[in-house]
Every structure is written in structure tokens, then in C-alpha cells.
């Protein structure tokens, strides 16, 4: 048996797949750190306290919503409704003049309920993209019913903690990073998390292995809804009010961030933690192009190119299969370097379909 590997690996408290999932994020982490350092040296406005604070405030909502999105994408699904859920959260925060605790409870409950709704649809067989397209409209409608136009008053006892800044580091940013780390641990190191990767890898196999497929999916979408609601609160820290349209761009931005972080659109692969460097990279791109005075239509072009280049880099870095949305069934252009083991691997994955 030539293929036997009896290498004794040091016994890490974290799972092997958990650790391996972090590897692909190394590249963008490096790029974003280098970019931060270079930008800080080159650009005086960049390292100004205002800008640092602005950058971190800006990252908080995207971090949260992208982490939730990453969980859903790991199930091979997608959540287009997160943007309107964020808007809904902002208007709820601004329209209900109650105590901070109550507002947070309401917002989280609505996020949970909305996400659960998505999950129920998906579990009953509705395509996730269509399901969340539907709830996207519903949440938007509800947001407009709650608050017909931007405004409202955010309870001061909520606004105060939301806008607290330590030095130049906003509390919302710290909380967002904390929440992402917690979510990462939950996805990577709990039974639910393992089931999540299994369901995303192959739902049919998961069902045969008698994993609680439905529960896993329900939790995944609920988490996404809740994180979108939290992201809405983080957005309130920026706009100090409610706005029934403010979350719209986040649907696509969160997907972009998750995929740049290396979450495979085909599901079952990736690491929620990787959304942190991905969001940093996206925020930096915006920020630097902005400071460089590049007009936004060029920013579109630059962003598109960066998106393509990042994914290309993943591909070149030798994890092609993780990014092959197109090539379901383990289709890999033969002639690659992997040899016999590689083709059997793809066979195993493909045998599922």
C-alpha cells in the first residue's frame, strides 16, 4: 500500500480542516498588511486619526454581514436578503423609542426570525438565491412600512455605546471582530460547524450520514440574519439614524468579501476568519483609491480588476478546486500536477452529484 501515510501529526486542539482552511487566506492577509504599511508610509492623510477611525467604522458592518454570508455560502447557499435586513435593523433601531436593551433584543429577534424564514424556505427546497431574493423584497417592504424615509431617533443609550471610540478604535469594530472570531470558532469547532461543512460539501451525503441537515441549514441562515441585524446596528453607529435603503449595497459587498476570503461558492470549503483580511482589503481599496483622488468610475474598474486578480491568485496558488464554481463534479482540467491521487479526489467529490 503505497498511499499509506502514517505520519504522526502533532495533536492540535483545533481540527485539521480548521487549520487548513486558514491557509488560503494567508495571501490576502499578507497583501492587505503590506498595503496598510505602504499606505501608512506614503500617505499622510491615510494615517491621520480621522481616516483610521473612519476606515474601522466602515469595516465593522461589512465584517459582520460578510461573516454571516460566509456561513451561508459554506452551505452552498447564498443570502441576498442581508442588505435589506440591515436596513430593517437600522429603522427598527431608530423607530422604536425604547431602551437600548429592548432595541437590541428586537433587532436581534427580527434578524433571527428573518434568517429562520430564509432557512425554512431553503430547507423546503426553494433555491436559496430565489428564496432570499424574495425575502429581500419583503424585508425592504417592512423597513419602508416602519420608516417611510431616512430619519428617526436612535435611543441615546444605544447610540452612546455604538459610537464609543477607544483612541481611534471604535467599539463597534472591536465587537465586530470579536463576533466574527466567535462565529469562526462555532463553524470550525462545534458539531454544528462540522455538519455545516458536510452539508455544504454534499447535502446528499450528509443526509445519508444522518446529519441533521435541516437543523444545520436553519441555524446557518438564522446566523446570517442575526449577523445582518448586528451589521445594521454597526451601521447605525455610522449614520445615527434609520434608513430603509442604506443596506442595499451590502448584499453584493458581503458576497464579494466572503469569496475574496476564500469561501468556495460551491460550498463546504473556507474559513469564516478569512473575511477579516478580505474586508480589510476591500475597505483599503476604496479608501486608497479615494485618497488618491481616483474618480469613482475608475474605482469601479479598479475594483473589478482587483476582484478578478485575487481569485486568479487563489487559482494560481494551487487551490483551484475551491474556486471552480463552474466545474462542479470535480472537473479539473487534466494535465495538472496532482497525479493519480488528485483524480481520485475529484472522483470522490463528483460521485455525489
Amino acid at each position, binding site marked *: 500500500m503505497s*498511499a499509506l501515510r*502514517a505520519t504522526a501529526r502533532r495533536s492540535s486542539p483545533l481540527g485539521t480542516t480548521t487549520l487548513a482552511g486558514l491557509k488560503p487566506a494567508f495571501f490576502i492577509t499578507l497583501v492587505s498588511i503590506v498595503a496598510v504599511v505602504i499606505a501608512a508610509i506614503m500617505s499622510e492623510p491615510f494615517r491621520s486619526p480621522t481616516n483610521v477611525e473612519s476606515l474601522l467604522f466602515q469595516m465593522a458592518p461589512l465584517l459582520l454581514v460578510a461573516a454571516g454570508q460566509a456561513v451561508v455560502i459554506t452551505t452552498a447557499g447564498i443570502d441576498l436578503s442581508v442588505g435589506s435586513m440591515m436596513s430593517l435593523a437600522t429603522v427598527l433601531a431608530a423607530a422604536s423609542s425604547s431602551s437600548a436593551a429592548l432595541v437590541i433584543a428586537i433587532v436581534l429577534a427580527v434578524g433571527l426570525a428573518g434568517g429562520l424564514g430564509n432557512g425554512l424556505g431553503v430547507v423546503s427546497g426553494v433555491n436559496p438565491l430565489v428564496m432570499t431574493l424574495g425575502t429581500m423584497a419583503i424585508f425592504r417592504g417592512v423597513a419602508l412600512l416602519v420608516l417611510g424615509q431616512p430619519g428617526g431617533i436612535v435611543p441615546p443609550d444605544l447610540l452612546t455605546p455604538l459610537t464609543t471610540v477607544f483612541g481611534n478604535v471604535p467599539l463597534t469594530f472591536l465587537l465586530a471582530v470579536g463576533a466574527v472570531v466567535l462565529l469562526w470558532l462555532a463553524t470550525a469547532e*462545534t458539531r454544528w460547524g462540522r*455538519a455545516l*461543512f458536510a452539508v455544504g460539501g454534499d447535502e446528499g451525503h450528509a443526509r445519508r450520514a444522518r446529519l*441533521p441537515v435541516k437543523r444545520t441549514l436553519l441555524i446557518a441562515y438564522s446566523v446570517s440574519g442575526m449577523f445582518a441585524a448586528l451589521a445594521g446596528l454597526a451601521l447605525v453607529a455610522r449614520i445615527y439614524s434609520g434608513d430603509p435603503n442604506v443596506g442595499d449595497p451590502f448584499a453584493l459587498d458581503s458576497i464579494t468579501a466572503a469569496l475574496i476570503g476564500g469561501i468556495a461558492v460551491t460550498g*463546504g470549503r473556507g474559513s469564516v476568519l478569512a473575511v477579516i483580511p478580505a474586508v480589510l482589503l476591500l475597505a483599503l481599496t476604496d479608501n486608497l483609491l479615494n485618497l488618491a483622488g481616483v474618480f469613482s468610475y475608475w474605482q469601479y474598474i479598479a475594483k473589478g480588476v482587483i476582484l478578478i486578480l485575487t481569485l486568479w491568485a487563489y487559482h494560481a496558488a494551487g487551490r483551484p478546486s475551491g474556486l471552480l464554481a463552474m466545474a462542479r463534479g470535480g472537473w479539473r482540467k487534466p494535465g495538472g500536477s496532482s497525479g*493519480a491521487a488528485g483524480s481520485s479526489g475529484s472522483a470522490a467529490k463528483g460521485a*455525489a452529484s
Partner: protein
Amino acid sequence: MLDANGGPSAGPPSAAVLVCDALDKRYGATHAVRDVSLTLAAGRTLALMGENGAGKSTLMAMIAGEVKPGSGSATVDGFVAVVHQELSLFADLTVGENICIGREPRLLGRGPVNNRALRTQARAALDRLGVAIDVDTPVSKLSPAEQQLVEIARAVALDPALLILDEPTSSLEPSQVDLLHAATERLKAAGTSVIFVSHRLEEVFRFADEIAVMRSGALVGAGPASDFTRESLVASMVGRELEQLYPDRSAARPDAAPILTFDAVGGHGVHDVSLTVKPGQIVGIAGLEGHGQHVVAELAAGVRRVRSGSIAIDETRAKLRSPREAIAAGIAFVPPDRRSSGLMLPLSIAENLTVAAAHRLHPSRLLSRAVEQRAIAPVAERLRLRYASMEQRVGELSGGNQQKVLFGRWLLVPNLRLLVLDDPTRGVDVGARAEIYSVLRELADRGVGVLLVSTDMLELIGLADEIHVMYEGAVRGTVPGHSATEEEIMTLASGVTA
């Protein structure tokens, strides 16, 4: 119609682990399982036999509770674990994570996964089976045989009352089959019952205490294994006497110029492979899993590109850069994993059969259903394909019939010159195998060359004119097909120097 009730299981009814009562299942026009009643006592092994599409997997799925019976019921006293015909591991998780999936040991009661304990548990499960696979390896890096073993280890680790093994040995080597056999014996001793589905007759007699035979969804025979002989078993499966599995060899044509020549070909883990395939010749490639025989097939079919040495077609050097170029040169390929690389599962039988020949069948590029019907009807007939309609999704066919469709695809290509087959009869029943073999022989007699890669040594011995045995990426030796023995091939394949 026979009824297995009370027949084979001698013990008192209270000892029955499994009781099936008039199980019945239809899929549209297909009556997959008809009124099957069956009991199985604790600690017994039942071999379930039957042609492809006889309904074995469907019956197992109903017993395991994965498919709802149309009518009737299955009662199991305890937990059922299933090793499915198609692997159902998670390619991106590690061996250990796969074995413990859904039952991960946890810290602090219901807290996070305890990965150290998980590794230990997984290692223990593999040890129980007697295999040494690193629990931290991602499953995608394993060979099909290793994956199969992991799947078995996962099922065994569940300590089931009933273990269902649906064709568990189709990708295993003899030594691994021995491991499995030992494991099932241990389980039996501990009171676990086993249902074993296989198309390999030798194994059936080795593993089983009892045998049940299905045909067209119905149970047509059941009894202690000792009541059956090879011949009687085949006859009750196929419903007729099968005179001969392997067709007669025809006269070789040693003087013909080779269609395909490998000259010291290397790349992708193989090196210095030299061989020729002449018109009408069936050339076999033997070897244990992972020794490069699949790569040889893929090189010949243009799936992979040659890195060193050269390939010649009709004695002129050729560069096969894609299957497409190979097909243009008359070389066809039947891949081993029919569900992922062979068939388009959501498409119809007709669409699957005609994909390669579409342009030839319809030179004007306009589809004509009449032309298509005329072309595919004889092929379906020739292969004895069991189907409800040509418009049926191919994914609904049983495994063996899927394999026939895959094979039939190339019978529609008129300029076929060389057929490259990689494990073409994996999971195919004897009857269908006999049909495929006779078609192969017929093609060879028409002057088509065949390059046959197989893990089934008997198949190679029964069909091939010469057999190249591979070991660690190179041809270790070549034996003439008509006089080869299993021992001879095994010796070469294990790298034992003569």
C-alpha cells in the same frame, strides 16, 4: 413467487434483527421492488444478489429508512449502518472528521469538538478494521480503495445491529477484501447482522451464511449459502443458464500494424511505459490500486498529456492534447467513475448515448429524432439495456445499466478504432458483464483495438490477449492472456522480484 420468511433464518423469530414485510416500491413506470418479505437473524450474514437494476439498492435504502416504502414495512431491532454503493464521504474533511461526523466527541459536555479525542476515536475505528490510514489526511487525497475503507470504518464504528454493505468490495484489492472479511466475522461474533451486496460470486460464498436473490424487483430465491452453487446462483439471478461469461478468443492477427504505440511514455507518475495495441487485439493493464494503470489509460485517451517518450497512432507520432483529438483519431475512452466523469446524470438516455456521435449522426447539424431512434435502438437492444423510455433521465437507471449507456456511447461512433476502458465492469452484474464482454469481442473481431485497464484479474485473464502488469508507475512484466494465472499477476503487481 418465493418467500424467504422462515426459510433461511433458523433461529426463533425473537432473534430476528430484521423483518421486512411485503416491501414494495415503484419509481414511475419502474417497479423497483415487488412485495419482498425477508427476515434476518442476529449474527448472520446475508448476501443479496441480483442483476443490475434488480432492486437491491432500493431494498437496502428502504431497510435503512432512507427511502419511504411504497407499501409494506421494514422493522429493524436496533441501529442500521449503511455503506452505500456510491461513496458518501466528505471530500474536504479529513479521515478522522469523516469517521466521527455527527458524533464528534465534545469538550465540556455539549461544548466544542474535542479534536484530540476525535483523532483517537477515529484511529481506533480504523484499527478495528485493521487499516493504517492517517486520520488527518483530507479524504480527497485518498485512493478510491482507501476511501472505501474509511467509509466502512465509519459504519463499523457505529456498532450497528445491522450493517448493510452495498457493493463494498468493487474498488478493493484482495488483501483489503480480506480485512473486510475479518472485520465482518468479528462483527458477526459480536451479534451484528450483515447484509452484503456484491456481484463477485467468489466473495459471496466466502462472506455469506445465507443468500437471497432478486430479479426484476422480486425475491426469487433464498436459502442457506450451502444450498447454492455458482451455476445455480447465476441461473436464478439471470433467469436463464449463462453458458459462458467470457467469449471465445478469436485468432490473433500478429502481422497487423499497431494502431497505438507507446514508446517509453512517462508523466503523471508513470514512466517508461512501452506497449502496442494492434487491430483486433485486447491488451490488458493490471496492477494494484494506485500504481499508475489509470494514468496509462488516460494518456492513451488524450485525457492527460505525455511528458516524456512518445505515442504513435498508426505508427506516426501523434500528440493527443485532449480527448477530442483522440476521438477524432478514433480513440474512445470509458472512464471508471461513471457518475462524475462518464454520464450527464440529469440528461436522458438518448442524450447520453448520442453526445459523442451527434455530429456524425446528423452531418447537417440538424437533429432528426428518426435518425437518432434508428441509430440507438439496436445499441440498446444489443446491450440489453433496461429502461422505461429513451427520454428517461440516465441518473434514474441502476448502476449497471448506467455503465451500459456509457459503453454504448462509443458503439454509435462509426470510425471507432481503439477503445480505452478503465474498469468498465465495476459494479456490473454477471449477465450484463457477459453482454459487455461479447460486445467487446465483437468489436475486436471487427478490427477495433482494446486497451483494458482493470482491477479484476479474472476479467483480464478471461479477455486479454496480453497483460501488462504495473508496479510503481512502470510495467513490471507482461504475460500472455490465455495462459496467465492470478498468482502470476499478483506476484508482478506486488513488486516481488522473480
